């Protein structure tokens, strides 16, 4: 390359940039880089913040659970790998206070626990807890509020656990790794690990479990796991990470992550579309300079070098500005959300930056490739014959190159072939449908646009004449609208689903162990105190013992597993809460069989049982199976009459097994219920429960707040991403209208010269854009529906539904937005006088 070539390219770039000739393509690159950078940087930071937050729910980044103590070398090895470690022993034992006793969940924590999250303590039962970094001193125990209630204790009094007496020094409000099960746990007692031995409750045969907590970098954690894996005994040990978290929070985060990914992918597609539009325009505007240069003796390679250099300059400038802008946008959003979303700005993520630069460069190169090839093919003869365009013309190459580029970018970026294929597939479907519709429309237009030449007829005439150009324009409008619709509808559906999980008034207290005698008094008392309780569920504790008379066991040996045989089927491994009712709980759905609609036994003579679908799948329970339960010394045989899907994320009492009431006659149940008490009345709870000392109260307010907090943060982040994608989409639409305005300039100039009134021209352009906008909107609604169906059912595991409202909203919004943008562009051109307009065309 000669110095002159470089200088020429640089000079052209400088002048064109100054004169605004490069604005659109530069904006497109800036848009792609900044949106991809801000989106992925923000989502990466948010994800890391959320992962850190969810790590608090297991009190570490990884946990090794074991039924026996692990070799101390495993821990030293972890430390060698650079990990922080801590451990805790769990067991169940009786706690005594005078004549009172209760089964408790005893936790003996060693120094360092918890590695993530915090233990919260209070000085009064049911008072809000404060985080503490300390652990109970030797001889001290921190116990949960309800244990104070059940054992009639006060701070400073004593409890006995095994052979050791502990002074109760704090109310244990919260431990990070409490889990989300409302009924699973006995009241927790936290002691120092050093005191455990003196209790003498851990011995051969005792059911203790040992948790080892680890934190550190992902790489160190993975390296350690690789070392540890061969030594793990699957029967005894399990390795838990945050991603295994199947709680409401875990699922919300997973969905949000997928949404971020989706939004980022769509941002890439939007950016690609805008670059493609801009590059096309750029190429067309340079036909003359190329023809002139060739006429003046420039060789093909010189022309190529000049324009490749120009594209390189534009790309570099676009990437530089886009990077700064993207970073600023992200920073502004993080600041704006500060208080609500806890995103750390300390960590700089290189991946988003690299992705953004890569996207900008790939988009700029691949999408300008075909327009540039066209540009290079412009004949010098154009200087004499102005109607001569580029000689290279292959829509196939164009679609193939752009399509291939978009798909590879999506796949490379997401690493998710399914998601990329769904989005890309629906895009292709949209393109094909649009081509058909456009030509159908043009055919229709022949009929609609007949008659005296008014604005309406002019609009149709233009659409008809520029059939292929309009088809392409329509496709790019429709793709943009579709992408915006997907992001919008997914956000709406997802946030609605999250909010439905925890509507206002979600029960924040659970009552367990209400006896038959207490029930009427409790109902009256709560009514007098203006606390609503809707439903009381009768419960008996029972052991699930056999399926089809085959005994179930809790353990499955490794050898049996390998041989594919099982001696005895897998069971629950613990007592289940059995309830009975003739009414199906409203958040339950029958997925197989039928709910009990009579009081009669089934054909087999047994009464029915409805089993929760996921547990049925885990235990391989089928409709019609005979299930046997053991309640006290009694045996209850039932037949599976239905399978139910239960939304466990609703914080409502739910049951694995609901039995036909007739089968349970004669059993004395206790009752279980839940109620909502406003935060402002929290202080009344002790008074409220005073007459019912033996009833166990669970306070799940903190858990609900945690859930709400996360949902709120994730929702806000999703909102931000929506706004960003909408802004990107709007810019793309503007670029498209701008580009199409150039093409219309000549026609407007001619119409103007021939004396057409501004009103007629404006109205005809408005009609044309309204027609294009509404058809694009309609097609987008159609493609959106198909994409959403696959996205929601296959990727997001949500219930896919039709979104009829968008079949109306999208065409109207499309017509409005495209119409207005078209009018603005047209208005700008019509403001220029005719000779200026004609001169601009030269």
């Amino acid at each position, binding site marked *: 390359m*000669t110095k*002159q070539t470089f*200088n*020429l390219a640089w*000079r*052209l770039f400088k*002048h*064109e940039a100054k*004169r605004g*000739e490069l604005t659109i393509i530069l904006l497109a690159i800036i848009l792609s880089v900044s949106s991809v950078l801000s989106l992925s940087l923000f989502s990466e930071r948010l994800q890391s913040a959320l992962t850190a937050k969810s790590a608090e729910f297991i009190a570490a980044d990884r946990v090794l659970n074991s039924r026996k103590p692990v070799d101390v070398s495993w821990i030293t090895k972890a430390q060698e790998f650079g990990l922080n470690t801590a451990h805790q022993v769990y067991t169940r034992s009786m706690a005594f206070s005078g004549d009172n006793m209760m089964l408790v969940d005893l936790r003996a924590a060693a120094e360092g626990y918890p590695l993530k999250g915090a233990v919260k303590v209070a000085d009064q039962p049911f008072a809000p807890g404060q985080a503490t970094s300390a652990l109970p001193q030797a001889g001290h125990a921190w116990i949960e509020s309800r244990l104070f209630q059940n054992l009639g204790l006060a701070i400073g009094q004593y409890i006995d656990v095994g052979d050791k007496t502990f002074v109760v020094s704090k109310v244990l409000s919260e431990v990070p790794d409490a889990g989300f099960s409302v009924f699973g746990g006995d009241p927790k007692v936290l002691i120092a690990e050093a005191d455990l031995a003196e209790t003498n409750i851990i011995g051969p045969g005792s059911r203790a479990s040992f948790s080892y907590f680890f934190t550190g970098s992902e790489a160190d954690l993975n390296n350690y796991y690789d070392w540890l894996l061969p030594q793990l005994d699957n029967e005894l040990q399990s390795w838990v990470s945050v991603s295994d978290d199947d709680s409401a929070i875990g699922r919300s985060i997973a969905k949000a992550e997928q949404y971020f990914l989706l939004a980022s992918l769509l941002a890439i597609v939007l950016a690609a579309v805008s670059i493609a539009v801009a590059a096309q325009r750029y190429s067309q505007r340079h036909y*003359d*300079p190329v*023809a*002139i*240069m*060739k*006429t*003046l*003796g*420039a*060789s*093909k390679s*010189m022309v190529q070098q000049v324009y490749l250099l120009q594209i390189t300059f534009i790309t570099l400038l676009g990437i530089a500005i886009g990077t700064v802008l993207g970073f600023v946008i992200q920073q502004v959003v993080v600041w704006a959300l500060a208080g609500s979303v806890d995103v750390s700005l300390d960590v700089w993520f290189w991946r988003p930056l690299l992705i953004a630069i890569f996207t900008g460069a790939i988009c700029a190169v691949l999408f300008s490739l075909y327009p540039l090839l066209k540009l290079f093919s412009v*004949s*010098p*003869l154009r*200087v*004499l*014959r*102005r109607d001569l365009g580029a000689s290279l013309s292959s829509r196939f190459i164009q679609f193939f190159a752009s399509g291939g580029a978009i798909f590879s970018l999506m796949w490379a970026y997401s690493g998710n072939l399914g998601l990329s294929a769904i989005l890309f597939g629906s895009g292709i479907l949209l393109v094909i449908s649009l081509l058909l519709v456009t030509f159908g429309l043009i055919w229709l237009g022949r009929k609609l646009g007949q008659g005296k030449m008014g604005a309406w007829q002019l609009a149709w005439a233009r659409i008809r004449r520029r059939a292929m150009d309009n088809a392409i324009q329509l496709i790019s409008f429709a793709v943009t609208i579709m992408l915006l619709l997907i992001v919008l509808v997914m956000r709406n559906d997802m946030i609605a689903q999250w909010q439905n999980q925890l509507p206002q008034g979600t029960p924040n207290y659970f009552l367990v162990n209400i006896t038959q005698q207490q029930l009427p008094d409790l109902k009256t008392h709560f009514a007098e105190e203006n606390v609503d309780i809707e439903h009381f569920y009768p419960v008996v504790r029972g052991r699930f013992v056999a399926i089809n008379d085959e005994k179930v066991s809790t353990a499955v040996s490794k050898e049996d597993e390998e041989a594919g045989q099982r001696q005895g089927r897998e069971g629950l491994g613990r007592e289940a809460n059995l309830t009975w009712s003739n009414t199906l709980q409203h958040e339950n759905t029958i997925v197989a069989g039928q709910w009990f609609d009579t009081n009669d036994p089934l054909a087999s003579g047994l009464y029915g049982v409805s089993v929760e679908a996921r547990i049925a799948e885990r235990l391989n329970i089928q409709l019609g199976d005979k299930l046997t339960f053991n309640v006290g010394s009694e045996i209850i045989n039932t037949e599976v009459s239905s399978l139910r899907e239960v939304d466990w994320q609703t914080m409502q009492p739910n049951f694995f097994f609901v039995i036909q009431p007739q089968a349970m006659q004669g059993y004395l149940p206790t009752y279980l219920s839940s109620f909502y008490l406003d935060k402002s009345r929290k202080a009344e709870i002790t008074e409220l429960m005073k007459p019912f000392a033996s009833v166990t109260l669970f306070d799940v307010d903190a858990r609900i707040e945690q859930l709400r907090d996360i949902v709120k943060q994730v929702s806000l982040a999703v909102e931000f991403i929506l706004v960003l994608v909408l802004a990107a989409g709007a810019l793309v639409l503007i670029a498209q209208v701008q580009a199409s305005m150039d093409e219309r300039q000549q026609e407007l100039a001619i119409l103007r010269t021939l004396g057409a009134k501004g009103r007629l021209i404006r109205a005809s352009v408005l009609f044309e854009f309204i027609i294009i906008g509404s058809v694009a909107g309609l097609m987008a609604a159609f493609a959106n529906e198909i994409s959403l169906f696959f996205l929601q059912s296959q990727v997001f595991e949500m219930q896919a539904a039709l979104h009829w409202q968008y079949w109306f909203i999208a065409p109207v919004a499309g017509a409005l937005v495209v119409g207005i943008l078209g009018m603005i562009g047209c208005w700008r051109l019509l403001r220029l006088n005719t000779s200026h307009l004609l*001169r*601009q065309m*030269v």
Partner: protein
Amino acid sequence: MIKTSAITKTVNTTQGELSILKPISFEVKAGESIAIVGASGSGKSTLLSLLAGLDEVSSGEIYLDGQSLHSMNEEQRAQLRGAKVGFIFQSFMLVQSLTALENIILPAEIAGLADAKQRGQDILEKVGLGHRGDHYPNQLSGGEQQRVAIARAFITKPKILFADEPTGNLDAANSDKVERLLFDLNRDSHTTLVLVTHDSELAKHCERQLLMTAGELSDITPSNKTPDINVPVPTIQSQVG
């Protein structure tokens, strides 16, 4: 300087082959100025495009300064244009994103001339636009744009100059100015001029006039023809050459 031998041009249309130029043979001597006149659509611009190597002949031979243009590919023709040919067009064909001076020096840069800028400055002065070098084409009047185009055409001191309706887009006063400038510079630099026009008055300024009618060329030069215009434009004096 230019020699053609039975050149033709035919194009394929939906109605079959269309002959635009019938076999044409003629010769232009070095330093000579010729005008090709004719009605619109007679084929004169097509002939120009073939002579300048912008398009390929369907048959026949063209020699430009002794080089066989008809056997060259696009790259070789571009090289030849860069080295020996200058152009002036009806629609000026200036690069809109370059200033007047940059447009003028464009061919010199393409040809790799080291003193391109100096040459540009000089010739800009000669065409009377020394103070408008930094202006963009759309900031100049039609006459000024054509003067820039003329300066661009002469900067590489071409042996042959092709002008396609150089005054076609100008009013009478500007036409006059441009005509004088064109012929003065041409005379001073001893360039061979091929002028295509439908303006018979303009054509009279050339030493020879050829008439194109429906793709056929005939010499209509009156005997003992002397160019009408030879009065130099004051600003350019005799500095060219």
